């Protein structure tokens, strides 16, 4: 058992790297499909989805959050994303994890509230040190409600963020950031980073593959730690050299510290109609949420 685990540390990193690359290629494929969100102008789509994201943070009732989640699912369907894939992608990790985190809070010993199901009546007050457990162990109404609101809020937010990432080409998404007054240098740095992430990932992948292919038998965790540390160091050195080379290349092509970008976005009436629709829907959901108390 120990042997397979030791080996798997490096294998796991390799698997993680290839997974990230695969996901990105797949995302770009979805962003190229025809669909409502794909065909909306990247800037307007980003503004609209951020509006909905803010709405997800402001809502207070679980049933209004369910409605918002349904809106996100609807958007996925009209954007040519399979519902099964979308649900799996969203729920598999983050909302599920939120549920696990929120689980203890439904009990009265972690968060006070009105009990609706008493699991165990202690008969008297039980204390551990200065911490009082109360007189019974119960699931509270407030706890369940709070946990449901948290999980639904996380699920709705993650769905909207995933929609944005899945339906927008990365170059368009970065350019859309200019709408939010993000400085041009910052956008340039972001797009360079995005490109070099994949170069560095492939360098790291090569180092790990080379190491695995030269290994006869397992290494000790101590040795593996050293290997990972020296890979990080090598990668840092390579990145530093690379940044100098890239800088020289940029200067020789006329870069003087001020990046220039091409703007080729053009909006049409369906874009504005989409934004108006999203804004109206947000206002309606938020208004309804506040009217309900």
């Amino acid at each position, binding site marked *: *058992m*120990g042997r397979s*685990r*030791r080996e798997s*540390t*490096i294998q796991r*990193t390799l698997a*993680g790297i290839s997974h*990230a690359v695969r996901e990105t290629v797949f995302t770009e494929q979805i962003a190229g499909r025809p669909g409502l969100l794909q065909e909306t102008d990247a800037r307007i789509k980003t503004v609209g989805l*951020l509006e909905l*994201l*803010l709405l*997800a*943070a402001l809502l*207070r009732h679980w049933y209004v959050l369910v409605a918002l989640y349904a809106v996100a699912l609807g958007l996925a369907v009209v954007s040519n994303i399979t519902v099964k894939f979308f649900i799996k992608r969203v729920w598999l990790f983050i909302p599920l994890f*939120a549920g696990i985190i929120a689980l203890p809070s439904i009990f009265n010993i972690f*968060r*006070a*509230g009105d009990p609706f199901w008493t699991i165990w009546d202690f008969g008297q007050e039980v204390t551990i040190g200065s911490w009082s457990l109360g007189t019974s162990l119960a699931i509270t*109404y*407030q*706890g369940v409600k*709070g946990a449901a*609101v*948290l999980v639904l809020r*996380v699920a709705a*937010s*993650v769905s909207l*963020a995933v929609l944005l*990432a899945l339906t927008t080409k*990365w170059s368009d998404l970065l350019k859309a950031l200019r709408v939010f007054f993000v*400085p041009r*240098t910052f956008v*340039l*740095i*972001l797009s*360079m*980073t995005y490109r070099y992430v994949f*170069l560095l*990932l492939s360098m*790291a992948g090569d180092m790990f593959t080379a190491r695995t292919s030269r290994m006869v038998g397992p290494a000790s*965790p101590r040795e*593996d*730690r050293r290997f*990972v*540390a*020296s890979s*990080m*160091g*090598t990668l*840092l*050195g390579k990145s*530093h050299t690379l*940044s*100098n080379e*890239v*800088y020289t290349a*940029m200067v020789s092509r006329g870069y003087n*510290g001020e990046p220039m970008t091409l703007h080729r976005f053009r909006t049409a009436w369906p874009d504005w109609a989409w934004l108006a629709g999203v804004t109206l829907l947000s206002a309606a959901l938020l208004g309804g949420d506040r009217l309900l*108390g």
Partner: protein
Amino acid sequence: MHIPDGYLSPQTAGGLWAFMVPAWYWAGHKVKSALSARQAPLVAIGAAFTFVIMMFNVPLPGGTSGHAVGGTLVAIVIGPWAAVIAISVALVIQALFFGDGGILALGANCFNMAFALPVAGYFTYRLLSGGAGAASARRLIAAGIGAYVGLNVAALLAAVEFGLQGELFVAADGSALYSPYGLSAAIPAMMGPHLLVVGLIEGVMTSLVYAFLRKTDPSLLVNYSAVKVAAAGSFRLKPLIIGLVLLLVCVPLGLLATGPAWGEWGTQDIRGEIGYVPPGMERFSGIWSGLLPDYSLPESNDAAVPDTATDDYGVVPAAGPDEPVSLDGVRDATPAYLVSGVIGLLVASGLALMAVRLITRSRKRETVG
């Protein structure tokens, strides 16, 4: 430690965005002045490096594995302000393209991991390494401890952000609207694993990478310090003394104010203003009283103003807005108030001076070494 959307209230997330926007501009300004046009590729590739090493599994004793953030390491190599931008960029890419960490929560994540982590880590490293040369064992250990401190500061901030949600943002029926736990649960739950495991991985890995670079590419470890020393001006004492004298002249101004400072109300003032004291505030009040409470000397408290209730400043409050300040009370409390002011000023400027001296001395030694 990547906080997803949904855990933080818009107020918390928005507040941290509001903090980070000027912080990014300021860091950008610092980087521009130190690194000129080279900044863009250096920061971009630093960010890509941060992103990639966050994916590395580090084997732990016992067969499991964990991740390192590498924030302090990046700060040591490219400087703390360039690191603030580089790690922010890595976090933006993780949030936008890989769904790791929320978009609204990006301000909070950047505040914890891209601002507090490299800054705390780097300055701990600087403080501990003192004037030691780049090849010394002291720097190696300082890098590890810096990384440990930086990571735990970031974890503590994240825990406080989580904990505040459970305390402050609650629906009318008492159910939680965001993260459901209060500070007393969030801080131990977050700090336990970070103090015992995650921080150690970060510290050990940073030291190991530092040792590797020291052996293979030592120029990387002095690059930033060399640039910085060249850019830094010499330290002069004269402006400091002029400033101090001006401040001392202004000390008696405080005696003219009647009520407590806005936002610094004690529980008594709050009760007077709104009729009750919020339970959370009552619980935390009195947890710390300063060395010179109410800006008066401890032993002079009783003698200063006999038989009269005083406000926070040892000054008798005026009976109504139009009535003059009771001059007897002012006269009695004045010496203690002035002495407190002067002691405060001297202690603060002394500490600042020591810190500046410490930094400039280590810089000088670096240039010599």
